């Protein structure tokens, strides 16, 4: 770091910022390397208490129920399963569900990061109120969320009335589904980024400023990069949640197949028809696709950490 400070000024700011970025990354790498423990002397040492608790809890609360569902789906013949899972209505619901969830997650990604930024770094009146409101979508029963959003965004509602002259119908359309999905996943990105932003070391920023970097450059090249894992994590969770949402979407959507019928509602329909097999098949497909997508994003994160560090 010493030669860094004594480098003569004519050297481009760019170069200096690069140096700073590399410095940051080597710090992360150093930390990563130091967290790899030496090989345990005895095998039983590997099964420490944290491991035990993690695996037990995970198994009982999550894996056992999931396997019950999968086993039930496995009682169907592969042909049966395929037929039920690739029913044209089902296919359209996968498309609508994952597509709309993606859009909602993207919106949350950008807006959520901006919100976390504003909440951590700036001070303005009612900031505390805003901070407190962020978690509401989790605590609010989905039925109430659904009723409220539907009413506000319907053609006579507070916001719907403003959008109607523009030709935008929100309630009872796919747009409404997107709004509901955005609502219920607001906390994810914000709460993911907030703690990381709060813990961020100001001295790195100040170092960049002392080298002559502008505010914008500092933000973009020094502050944002460490936030990317958190942003990505939050967005992934927002996406996952949007995919599974039922209670609020069922109220705001028209639930017309091929238009705005989402997969969880289709599962419910199959149940009402006493079609356990169909419900199980579609639920399993939803589960598998979600797991694959989550895996892909997490692998991307891990790869990034390993190779860009």
């Amino acid at each position: 770091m010493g030669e860094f400070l004594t480098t003569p000024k004519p050297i481009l700011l760019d170069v200096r910022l690069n140096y700073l970025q590399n410095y940051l990354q080597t710090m992360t790498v150093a930390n990563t390397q130091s967290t790899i423990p030496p090989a345990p002397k005895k095998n039983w040492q590997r099964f420490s208490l944290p491991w035990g608790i993690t695996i037990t809890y995970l198994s009982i609360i999550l894996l056992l129920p999931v396997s019950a569902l999968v086993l039930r789906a496995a009682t169907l013949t592969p042909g049966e399963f395929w037929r039920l899972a690739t029913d044209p209505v089902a296919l359209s619901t996968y498309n609508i569900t994952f597509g709309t969830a993606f859009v909602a997650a993207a919106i949350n990604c950008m807006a959520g990061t901006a919100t976390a930024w504003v909440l951590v770094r700036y001070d303005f009146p009612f900031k505390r109120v805003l901070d407190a409101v962020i978690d509401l979508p989790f605590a609010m029963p989905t039925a109430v969320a659904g009723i409220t959003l539907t009413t506000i965004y319907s053609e006579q509602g507070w916001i719907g009335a403003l959008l109607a002259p523009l030709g935008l119908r929100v309630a009872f359309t796919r747009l409404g589904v997107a709004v509901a999905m955005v609502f219920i996943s607001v906390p994810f990105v914000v709460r993911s980024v907030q703690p990381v932003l709060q813990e961020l070391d100001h001295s790195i920023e100040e170092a960049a400023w002392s080298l002559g970097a502008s505010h914008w450059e500092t933000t973009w090249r020094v502050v944002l990069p460490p936030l990317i894992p958190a942003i990505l994590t939050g967005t992934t969770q927002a996406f996952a949640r949007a995919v599974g949402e039922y209670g609020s979407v069922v109220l705001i959507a028209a639930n017309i197949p091929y238009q705005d019928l989402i997969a969880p509602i289709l599962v419910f329909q199959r149940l009402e028809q006493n079609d356990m097999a169909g419900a199980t098949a579609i639920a399993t497909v939803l589960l598998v696709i979600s797991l694959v997508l989550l895996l892909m994003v997490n692998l991307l994160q891990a790869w990034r950490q390993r190779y860009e560090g």
Partner: protein
Amino acid sequence: MWLDNWNQWKGKSLKSWIWLFLVAVSLSSVISACSGYGGSSSKKELTFVSYAVTRSAYKKIIPLFVEQWREKTGQTVTFGQSYGGSGSQTRAVIDGLEADIVALALSADTLQIQNAGLIKPGWEKKTPNGDGIVHRSVGVIVTRQGNPKNIKTWNDLARDDVSVVTANPKTSGGARWNYMTLWGNVTQTGGTEKQAQDFVTKVYSNARVLPRDGREATDAFFVQKQGDALINYENEVILAQQQGQNLPYLVPDINISIDSPIAVVDSYVDQRGTREVAEAFVQFLFTPQAQREFAKAGFRPVIPEIAAEFADTYPQISTLFTIQNFGGWNQVTPQFFGDGGIFDNTQANITRR
């Protein structure tokens, strides 16, 4: 050095204490929450499972029964009441919800429980009327104030300039009544099945929204101001009226009898030893006292004297058909609402347009 040992011991035992504490808290909550019922014979517990809109009626009827039963036998009966979507309640009972009495929205649901082996066949005959039906309703059309579109009958719903709100038969067992009313409107007045299918397809293509059930259909129409006409059940609309949602409605003269069944769940009452009380309760529901409460809550009574008392509220229907006209639910459910059934064809035809 002893300080190190002390610290280590303290650390270890602190860890285990906290662990124990958390486990103890969780366990005790769990145990206290699922402590069983007392089994003394001077107290009986009944679990009563019904569909959603009946709550206001049963909230009045149950205390009357409790009172009467205490006078007659000296036994105190407490009721655990559960209300929810008819289909969901059915599934819950089949999956292990130990209901003593089930009052569902349509016999198809009670038949499902019968098929699961929890109710013995012949439950219909155990009621005074011999058909297992404890109250009735009919289909109605709700319009806007002043009925601007001049809607008079079911046929008007197939007009091009009318948009309709009706619950989705796929997500609501109760909504199947609406579908069958429209179907019967054609077939019970001399039309063919093909004509019926065309008619129903036209009506459902006029539906921009298919809410999950009757309750949400009401909201979509009243609060979200969707559609020109709402197809719903008479009791649902009366309940909404009693809660302040007032719009004109008409009761078409060609209509289906929406019959709500009541049954004692044999497996559970025998298991819990509540058969006597449960069966007494079911019989009580057919007394004038109870039927009057049903009538006040928007349901058509099934005994003549109360029906006469409330003749003004519940207009007579000239052409009233029942689900038996279509072969009963055992036939209707798979034929109309199963996968690839008539409703699915209806929907496919609409989307193709």
